[in-house]
């Protein structure tokens, strides 16, 4: 017992002690930057070998301090997603390691606690559920064309990354059909967080079919003006995806 306390104190005197007294959200900011850039690399938005903007420019664009950015770049280097070269022509470069994408995504998923995933799913269900309800009130047939096209495209999308992009677009379009700019902006932001993770569950053809089916039933309920049904179906769709992520997280 005494020993444990002693060890704890020793750690507290070092780096951990500093972390305790760091501004409360600076660690969260590092994580947010790591996730953002890591997701962009996983989704192919940043290509292998592409040079990232300079540190101060990138920090400015992301709205974080250069110190935060450096910590995030260090974490990305540790994950093997970024290499840094010094000197002339140097800088930070995207580097896709040889490990398969799925393995890297699993490493990323491990960065989420089940509580955080559950909370992310709650937020998503709140957004998409409300969007579906409002869309059912405010949509007329011509507004459903885009949603139908997207539901159809999901059945055609070959790889997991493409499926995840189209899945996300469905929920953004649902928020737009609700005529709400705020819900739409929130949904776009949420998709940048969850999009890469969804690749892990959408690779499965059977599940992809199930999601496509769920999307079609949301569209039908919206078209019928069945507000509550539309909301429930949309909620169930995203809750099920989140539950799959949580289940997968627990195996890691």
């Amino acid at each position, binding site marked *: 017992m005494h020993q444990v306390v002693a060890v704890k104190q020793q750690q507290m005197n070092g780096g951990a002690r500093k972390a305790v007294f760091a501004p409360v959200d600076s660690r969260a900011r590092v994580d947010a930057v790591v996730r953002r850039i890591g997701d962009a690399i996983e989704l*192919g*938005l940043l290509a292998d070998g592409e040079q990232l903007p300079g540190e101060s420019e990138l920090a400015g664009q992301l709205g974080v301090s250069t110190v935060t950015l450096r910590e995030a770049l260090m974490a990305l280097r540790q994950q093997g997603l970024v290499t840094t070269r010094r000197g002339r022509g140097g800088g930070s470069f995207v580097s896709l390691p040889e490990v398969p994408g799925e393995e890297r995504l699993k490493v990323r998923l491990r960065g989420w606690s089940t509580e955080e995933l559950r909370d992310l799913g709650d937020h998503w269900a709140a957004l998409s559920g409300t969007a579906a309800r409002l869309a059912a009130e*405010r949509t*007329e047939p011509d507004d459903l064309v*885009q949603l139908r096209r997207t539901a159809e495209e999901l059945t055609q999308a070959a790889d997991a990354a493409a499926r995840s*992009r189209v899945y996300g677009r469905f929920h953004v379009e649902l928020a*737009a059909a609700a*005529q*709400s*700019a705020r819900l739409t902006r929130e949904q776009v932001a949420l998709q940048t967080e969850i999009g890469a993770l969804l690749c892990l569950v959408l690779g499965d053809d059977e599940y992809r079919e199930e999601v496509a089916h769920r999307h079609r039933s949301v569209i039908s309920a919206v078209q019928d003006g069945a507000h509550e049904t539309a909301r429930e179906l949309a909620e169930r769709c995203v809750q099920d995806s989140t539950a799959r992520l949580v289940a997968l997280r627990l195996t890691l």
Partner: protein
Amino acid sequence: MSLATAAAGTAPEVAAAVRSALESVFDAVAATRTDTADLLARVAAEGRRPATVDLAALRPGLHLRLARNELVSGVGFVAAPGLLTDVPAWLEWWQSGSDGDVRPLLLDLDPEQSAYADYTHWDWFALPRDTGERAVAGPYVDYLCSDEYSLTLSAPVQMEGRFAGVAAADVYLRHFEAAVLPMLRRLPGPAHLVNARGRVTASADPAHLAGSLTKGPDFAAVLQRARPGRFRGLRLVPCRDIPVVLVISAR
């Protein structure tokens, strides 16, 4: 906005004022259309196909239109896919920021990377392409360009007799409301404006808020007839040449 202070009391006067507000935006669209068509004709006369660098010549005009019309928050030319030699798709699009600066819209139009790369199904593109006429799209949530609840007014541009893209201008709904609300409030009954599909575009009637649908009347038919009409307790006054109907409820 000068419209806000205009004395307007009767329904036809309000419909005319709404029309003139949106016609001022169509003026910006028409000027962009003319500039673009002239530019494309010059390029064709040189025996070559246009590239993004040619479209840079549109910028002074686009910046001027953003500065001159308070209702216009975005303006530009959207090329039909395949028009330009150096890129598959392109928006020469400029927006005014809240601080009054003017900046270009830079979109990721690579279909391999963006789920939003294909813009050809949006009403503001598809309507002028399919009808050959100018169009009012929205209100709709514009998650492609501005993240704003918007109206987009557009018109087709041709090159050598073929559809080359659309000239267009964005009006944020909050700006449109600011321009028309004082007039709507002076009408004797609760009033709102709807588009051809019955979607509320601006409203001084708490029972019909912007973005909701006014169900019942066939607004497209009212616009077609171009004459005021009635539906149950509602007075319906079409705005001439603009697909917007003024709806006044009985008190």
